[in-house]
């Protein structure tokens, strides 16, 4: 069984309270960092650990931290991005719900490393009940001297604030999150300037995912090198994967990066295979915005090697035959699922969540959604498929924030790998309405 660094104690009764959490080794990283390490040393440990941002982009956290501008006399901020709203991703919710003190501990240690005196947790509006859990935990941390003035006698002060968003997916984008946190409409900002130079209230700001911040705790406790020893190459440490779809045992799993995809889907410790004895048809390995993989590319790469749960291996083959680890929203489709319908569903989500600021995303996502709706409901033409591809190309890379790309990739990949299914929807609309394309015409591997 793999080591669990984050959610080891998630099942302990009462772990949401300060006493129980402290009994299980909680807040050790705060003590270690504040009493024995300088902020630079903490940043150095995180750099050594090779931790990569767990929110989706996979940018090295230590590097992000070292980019933070540190002008004299200007406040700096750490903002935790708890606006988890990617379809298929629910790891942060699990982590905050079960282990609120782990996030707070990570926030204190990380804020200390960055020299932030006022840090924020921006939580998704729908997670109101988690907001209450976190607020209770923060009150406990204040009462026990882990937050507030002069933490553990080190002379370091920190205030931690939880703010709920209004429930917009776009506010998970770091600059939109900052705008929303400032009380404005959550539109992404133009970059440059990057938040590391000019972020919240115009001050240098670091925005990190919940899981990235939580991962700082084991990194400080055990040292960056010990953390880097887990995993393969540049994918180090453990990662929470939210497995959903037609699996025997869906749920949140903490895996050591480098686990094979086959083991993750079929292994007894993990998802235990496809539900109801069906066959695997496709898989979206990193949340709805990453390209979908057909069954023959899920466990093996195009080159024939085993596909592993790492940033590199899942991206092997580029977008032609690979995907991305993304935020770890592992969605599995069995043979009965309709890819066109699913693609339409994703497109509908992005059309709904586009902020409407820049034109390719605003008009393009809505257009794609309508064309896909037509295809799915038997009113499409073959030109619509190539039209979709063209709309895709015009959105991708031309938008302010990555939402445009996130909306374009799944559609592009679905057409790339399942074009025959799209064509079948056009050619036999009646049939497409009543039964599923399934795997009938896709040769299964032995």
């Amino acid at each position, binding site marked *: 069984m793999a080591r669990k660094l984050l959610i080891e104690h998630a099942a302990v009764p009462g772990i949401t309270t300060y006493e129980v959490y402290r009994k299980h080794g909680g807040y050790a990283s705060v003590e270690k960092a504040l009493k024995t390490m300088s902020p630079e040393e903490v940043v150095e440990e995180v750099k050594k650990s090779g931790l990569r941002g767990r929110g989706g982009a996979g940018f090295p956290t230590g590097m992000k931290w070292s980019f933070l501008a540190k002008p004299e006399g200007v406040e700096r901020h750490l903002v935790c991005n708890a606006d988890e709203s990617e379809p298929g991703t629910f790891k942060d919710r699990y982590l905050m719900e079960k282990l609120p003190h782990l996030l707070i501990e990570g926030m204190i240690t990380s804020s200390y490393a960055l020299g932030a005196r006022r840090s924020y947790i921006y939580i998704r509006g729908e997670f109101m009940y988690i907001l209450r859990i976190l607020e209770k935990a923060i009150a406990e941390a204040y009462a026990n001297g882990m937050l507030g003035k002069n933490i553990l006698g080190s002379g370091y002060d920190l205030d931690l604030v939880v703010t709920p968003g209004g429930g*917009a997916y*776009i506010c998970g984008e770091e600059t939109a999150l900052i705008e929303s946190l400032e009380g404005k*409409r959550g539109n992404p900002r*133009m970059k*440059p300037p990057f938040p590391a130079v000019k972020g919240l209230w115009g001050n240098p700001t670091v925005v990190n995912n919940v899981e990235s911040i939580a991962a700082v705790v084991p990194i400080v406790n055990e040292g960056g090198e010990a953390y880097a020893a887990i995993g393969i190459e540049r994918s180090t440490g453990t990662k929470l994967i939210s497995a959903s779809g037609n699996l025997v045992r869906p749920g949140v799993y903490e895996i050591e990066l480098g686990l094979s995809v086959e083991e993750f889907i079929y292994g007894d410790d993990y998802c235990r295979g496809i539900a109801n004895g069906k066959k695997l048809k496709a898989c979206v390995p990193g949340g709805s915005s990453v390209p979908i993989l057909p069954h023959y590319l899920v466990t093996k790469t195009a080159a024939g090697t085993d596909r592993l749960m790492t940033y590199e291996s899942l991206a092997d083959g580029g977008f032609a035959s690979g995907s991305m680890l993304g935020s770890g929203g592992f969605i599995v489709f069995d043979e009965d699922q309709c890819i066109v319908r699913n693609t339409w569903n994703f497109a509908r989500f992005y*059309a*709904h*969540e*586009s*902020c*409407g*600021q*820049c*034109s*390719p995303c*605003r*008009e*393009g*996502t*809505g*257009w794609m959604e*309508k*064309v896909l709706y*037509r295809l799915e409901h038997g009113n499409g033409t073959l030109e619509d498929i190539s*039209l979709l591809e*063209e709309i895709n*190309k*015009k959105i991708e*890379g*031309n*938008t*302010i924030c990555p939402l445009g790309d996130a909306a374009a990739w799944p559609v592009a990949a679905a057409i790339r790998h399942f074009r025959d299914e799209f064509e079948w929807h056009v050619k036999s609309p009646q049939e497409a309405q009543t039964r599923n394309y399934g795997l009938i015409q896709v040769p299964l591997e032995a």
Partner: protein
Amino acid sequence: MIKVTIDDVEIEVAPGTTILNAARQAGGELVPPAMCYYSKLPGTGGKCRTCLVEVAAGSTADPRPMPKLVASCSTPAMDGMIVKNKTSERVQTNRGGVVEFLLVNHPLDCPICDQAGECHLQDLGYEHGSAKTRYREERRTFSPIDIGKKIKLHMNRCILCYRCVAVANQLTDKRVHGVLHRGEHAEISTYIENAIDNDFSGNMIDVCPVGALTDQTFRFKSRVWFLKPYEAECACDKCSGKAVVWMFGNEIFRVTARKDKYGEVETIEDKTAWICNDCRYDKKDPSKWNLIGPRKIDRHSVISQGKYATKNDNNPKLIR
């Protein structure tokens, strides 16, 4: 000073200048179009994506090309940067794509739109658009609403450039004008349809690149190309009083601010010459204005005659 090369033309500009402004200093064909950027309104730009350009070399220090097309209005130029606008096939295709997106929900009611003839979207559509739309679905529609006594909002025509939001935020004191909803459903509104009552609210009409915000005192009175623009001034204690009056015979049909070739209000005596609502709506009597002389319109629109004819001759692609 730093040196940038745009479409093989070398330009020297001050550090921190954006690519678009650098191009404007050089002028001519190499200037990317801008639907949302308005140099007189800080914070605008980056939204419409029509000004996308290709950066073939980032700078002398880091000559790698930028992987994505960048918005020239919000990307600062660097020393030794090589930018491709007209010369880049990729830019032209993607700009065409952006224009297509802008036209997806645009009603194309130019025959009855007051902006026709001085509309940036018309110009862009003419340059990059195709004769037929590929959009088969229903367009989003809104009913026209009155915002303020003198401004009519046709949300159908709006391309959400946010320029009027910037005017409302920066020129008027109440923040009641903004964007509601998101995505395709986003709409400009005064919160919620609260009439804007401010001396400078009329400038929204001038900054609007399309016909979404129109002057109620001029609506449906005349096509702009039938009117003669005159530079005029009047004594006004609220604004500069420097405007353009649009006349037909001895009658003033409308009053606008003086706009340069990029459709932006001119800077006169170091101040942006916004005009107040009194000058714009109420001074329609020629005796109140001191007419200086005919106003030259050098923006490429139907007002500057002959522009489209020559274009058509040189570009057989456009005759379909």
